[in-house]
């Protein structure tokens, strides 16, 4: 259970405070409601490149990192298809430094050409290191456009192509900033050994003077219902054959999400799961196999993926996965198997609330989805899942004509 207080500043910035006196630290999390889904299809990778630029100096402060390190703070950020999230942890006594730094870069960046030039190179090396210079590193660059044909989830957060990053200009940077990096398009969560009153005072001082901008109204093309199975066969210099199967499913805060989550757990979370026991242990087709969800805010993907053993064909492996999925759509799962995955989910939830920063982030994600209280409804939703609802969601999601399959084939 994550307790919180909330208020909204005059400029529209939504603020949440989670008080926890047991720690000497504070966590400050700012979520901007912009992700790679909001990008122009001709300028993909921009939200993430922009995240790098946020550390290159703001209007009144030439360096972001150094003043924070000086007061004993740490920070980082990440960009997803849905959001861009910035976070700081620092000793509570120095909380105001976080407000000073974050409010200045919300007010305006310094828009330095040299910073852009260098960060373009850094992001290209990130692209190389994570996606191109690794076996299977480019899987999501192949899989997203297969599974999504209309919705901007069809490109990866790093971008479709390195040229999009190379072509970014300072004008693009400015336009992006003043469209999305607005107090009325952000959520601030402050957690730790702080009081709501203290946070209010600091917000008034540092954030309230920042003017609101035009409200960003998201209108993205919806992904049409898939009606035919898709298959892509990709040949590459990798040591083993691998298979990836993606099925469209409800979004992270949809009512059916937890049901789909438990379904993926019982199929492929741990060593006692069905895919592992049947296909790895009994039939010995795979050297690893599992299932998980992309858990995006808009309808996401239910994933099954595995690496094949020598001598097993991709077609054989695919058929074997399909048989396991068919079983869960045809027959009700036994009650004790459901209790098992509920216990695992309950345990995971409890462990996810150990870290102060995780609590702050979870609260921000829920608030961004429209209702901060969603963060405290997870446990009840998990318990409400039944064998019938599992079967129903399996039938809805695991249809062959809802699947996109990638054969990642080893070059002989």
């Amino acid at each position, binding site marked *: 259970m994550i307790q919180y207080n909330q208020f909204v500043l005059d400029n529209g910035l939504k603020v949440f405070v989670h008080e926890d006196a047991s720690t000497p630290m504070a966590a400050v999390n700012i979520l901007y409601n912009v992700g790679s889904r909001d990008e122009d299809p001709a300028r993909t990778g921009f939200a993430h490149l922009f995240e790098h630029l946020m550390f290159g100096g703001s209007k009144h402060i030439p360096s972001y990192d*150094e003043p924070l390190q000086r007061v004993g703070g740490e920070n980082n950020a990440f960009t997803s298809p849905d959001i861009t999230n910035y976070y700081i942890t620092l000793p509570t006594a*120095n909380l105001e430094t976080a407000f000073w730094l974050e409010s200045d870069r919300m007010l305006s960046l310094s828009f330095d050409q040299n910073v852009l030039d*260098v960060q373009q*190179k850094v992001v290209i090396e990130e692209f190389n290191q994570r996606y*191109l210079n690794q076996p299977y590193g480019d899987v999501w660059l192949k899989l997203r456009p297969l599974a999504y044909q209309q919705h901007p989830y069809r490109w990866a957060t790093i971008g479709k192509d390195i040229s999009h990053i190379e072509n970014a200009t300072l004008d693009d940077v400015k336009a992006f900033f003043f469209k999305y990096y607005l107090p009325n398009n952000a959520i601030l969560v402050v957690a730790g050994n702080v009081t709501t009153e203290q946070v209010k005072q600091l917000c008034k001082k540092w954030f309230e003077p920042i003017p609101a901008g035009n409200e960003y109204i998201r209108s993205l093309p919806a992904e049409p219902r898939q009606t035919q199975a898709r298959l892509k066969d990709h040949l590459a210099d990798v040591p083993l054959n691998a298979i990836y199967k993606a099925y469209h499913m409800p979004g992270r805060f949809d009512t059916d999400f937890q049901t789909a989550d438990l379904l993926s757990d019982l199929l492929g979370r741990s060593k*006692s799961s069905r895919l592992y026991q049947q296909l790895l242990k009994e039939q*010995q087709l795979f050297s690893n196999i599992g299932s998980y969800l992309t858990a995006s805010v808009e309808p996401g993907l239910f994933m099954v993926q595995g690496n094949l053993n020598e001598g097993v064909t991709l077609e054989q492996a695919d058929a074997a996965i399909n048989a396991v999925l068919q079983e869960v759509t045809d027959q009700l799962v036994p009650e004790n198997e459901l209790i098992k995955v509920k*216990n695992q*989910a309950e345990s995971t939830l409890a462990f996810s609330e150990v870290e102060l920063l995780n609590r702050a982030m979870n609260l921000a994600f829920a608030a961004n989805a429209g209702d901060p209280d969603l963060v405290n409804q997870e446990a009840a939703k998990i318990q409400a899942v039944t064998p019938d609802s599992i079967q129903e969601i399996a039938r809805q999601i695991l249809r062959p004509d809802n699947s996109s399959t990638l054969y990642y084939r080893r070059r002989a």
Partner: protein
Amino acid sequence: MLLDRTQAPDYQLVNDARLVAVKTQKLDNGAPLYLIAFDQQPVMRVEVNFDAGSWFEPDDQAGAAFFAWKMLSEGTRSRTSAQISEAFDQYGAFLELNNGFDRGSLVVYCQPKHLHKVLPLLAELLTEAVYPEKEFDDLKTMTLQNLKVNFEKTSHVASVRFREKLFSRAHPYGRSQQPDSVARLTPADAQHFYERRIQLQPFRVLLAGQVGITEVALVNQYLGALPVGPPGTEAMPTPTITTDPTPELIEKAGSLQSSIRMGRTLFKRNHPDFHKVLVMNEVFGGYFGSRLMKNIREQKGYTYGISSNVGAFREAGQFMIGTDVKREFTQQTIDEIWKEIRLLQTEPVGDDELMTVKNYMAGEFVGSLNTPFEIADRYKLILLDGLPADFLSHYIARIRAVTASDVQQMAQTYLAEGSLIEVVVGSK
């Protein structure tokens, strides 16, 4: 009053870590129990830790410790592999089997309400493990497949080769899993390691999280009743460290990046220079604001990241610089690394920079002691390596005591020209 945004707010120095005390007691069989009680979320962790790392493997059986540990959950006299997985999963308990160079451990994360169901399983794995051929072969296949993928990564090859050159393949710290050694291993090798180093061997328990009298009593009931024989007395030869100083380039055609590793062997945590070297390392490559990051990422954009670190094992330590850089800039990066080293050796670090580094290290230290599990991990290091009890409580003061001339001297002493080995995988 107009807000002056150019002025940083006042700040306070962090000088204390609020450290939950560790309580020590003995279980009925004499095994030490270390308790870190932290009553917040309903979660806990039990770690049963043995002197059973790869250090204790026979030379020709690299990987025996790995298989002995990983197979603990693959069968007991009364349960199959599937039944064991099912049993842990049924209670939402997460099992980790770890084997390091020096030690190995069985770790379970669970909710306290399920502890009484989980402990009997732990006791069973520790006393009645069997090594069925089928499960052994499955794990072997998985391990070999993983190795195939990993050996395609320049970063993996570079790290493996770096340790080999640093310690030699004949030293436990220099050995890594290799396809040929893994392929040769038999279930009997793993079982033999288990019988020699785990079963009936002395252990210690670390209990962290929401743990009170009930949990301690349960741990004593199950783990305190395990038979413990005398410690293994077989003579382990003391391996010698042999460093191969020749720079090495492993060409990888078509690689977009080169993985660079440079470094040397170093001392253990009890060395008088330990904290001085930590500060020197931090300035040089230890954090995001370090000189290496500023130069090679933030000014030149050659890489997504570069860092240096100090690693300490029980019998030795190492210093390593690591980065993956755009292939064309491999030599420039190495040259820049040396330029930064020479700068550290010739010019004292400025007051401002040194202050930032120390404050950052103090804040990071306090911030890394936020959960019972982090605290337990810190205590584990000092308890098991036999470090003085004030190692943690005096950490910040010792960092603060390091001077600019100490930093310069450390760079001169430990980063002298010719003292660092170099491995590049990719191309130059």
